[in-house]
């Protein structure tokens, strides 16, 4: 007896291939659209951050800041860098941020951005690429794993400084 698939697990539409996605270094006119995409995703508008990032990265081959375009419209961005001794690690590539306009998802934009960033980082000598993701961001974690990323040798730790000031350092 054949059974119907659970709607929750039902196939989603595959990436549409009719739209041509191009990826290039960010230019100044791209920034308002990137700020808007970031605002849409994160809920906070941070123009100083994005303009500052652009000013710092635009001519630095070790810090690719790329934008994806479909029909001349900015639909996504990715920020990376090739750094040495970050958290004591030898030189490696980092993905700092990635974002795709919600109505442009399922076009393969994020994959194209990731692949292009990897190509830029390889060109400057990177052999490993790392990123850090919020533990509850299942969609983004799934995306990076789908690209082939796995758990690396680092684990992020944190503490509230309030806890330190309340208890002091004389516990041990």
């Amino acid at each position, binding site marked *: 007896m054949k*059974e119907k*698939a*659970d709607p929750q*697990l039902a196939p989603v539409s595959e990436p549409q291939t009719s739209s041509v996605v191009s990826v290039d270094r960010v230019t100044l006119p791209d920034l308002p659209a990137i700020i808007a995409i970031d605002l849409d995703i994160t809920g906070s508008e941070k123009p100083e951050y994005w303009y500052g990032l652009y000013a710092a990265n635009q001519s630095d081959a070790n810090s690719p800041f790329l934008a994806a375009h479909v029909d001349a419209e900015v639909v996504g961005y990715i920020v990376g860098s090739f750094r040495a001794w970050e958290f004591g690690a030898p030189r490696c590539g980092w993905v700092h941020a990635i974002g795709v306009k919600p109505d442009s998802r399922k076009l393969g934009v994020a994959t194209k951005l990731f692949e292009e960033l990897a190509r830029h980082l390889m060109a400057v000598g990177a052999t490993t690429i790392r990123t850090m993701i919020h*533990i*509850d961001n299942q969609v983004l974690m*799934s995306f990076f794993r*789908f690209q*082939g990323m796995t*758990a690396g040798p680092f684990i992020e730790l944190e503490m509230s400084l309030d806890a330190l000031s309340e208890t002091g350092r004389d516990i041990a």
Partner: protein
Amino acid sequence: MKLQQATRYAILATVHMAANPGKQVSAYELAAFYGLSQHHLAKVLRTLSMAKIVSSTRGPNGGCTFIANPKHVTLYDIIVLFENDWWDTEAESEPSGVAREVSRVLSELDRITMATLRSVTIQTIINNARRSELRDRDSTTIEQRAIERAEAK
């Protein structure tokens, strides 16, 4: 991580069937391919069928076909079908500071485990397995070429 036998069977069976979309696979074939118990596999396939991850056809030519979306089904979706009481740490109800702290550390482990299992889809496993096989093939080819060059000298 110690998983029950049924859970490991279910993961293997699901990935195998998803990697062969549209193909009907029997418990007998899976058991022979992976060297597993056919009886246990049959029970696992029934559970996967009830969860609508595979469809099952009865009869002498019967078997199972993967019917879900491999980009949506995660390891977590499979594991929760077979493992009970996995996420039952209750840090708040512990009476002492030590017990609460132990529970908190165990909850930390649960959180990391759950995040990992929920982010690994069946398609990701298939893709990574293929990448791994390609890397093995490439390294074998490079080794063979090196041997051939050395022999030619």
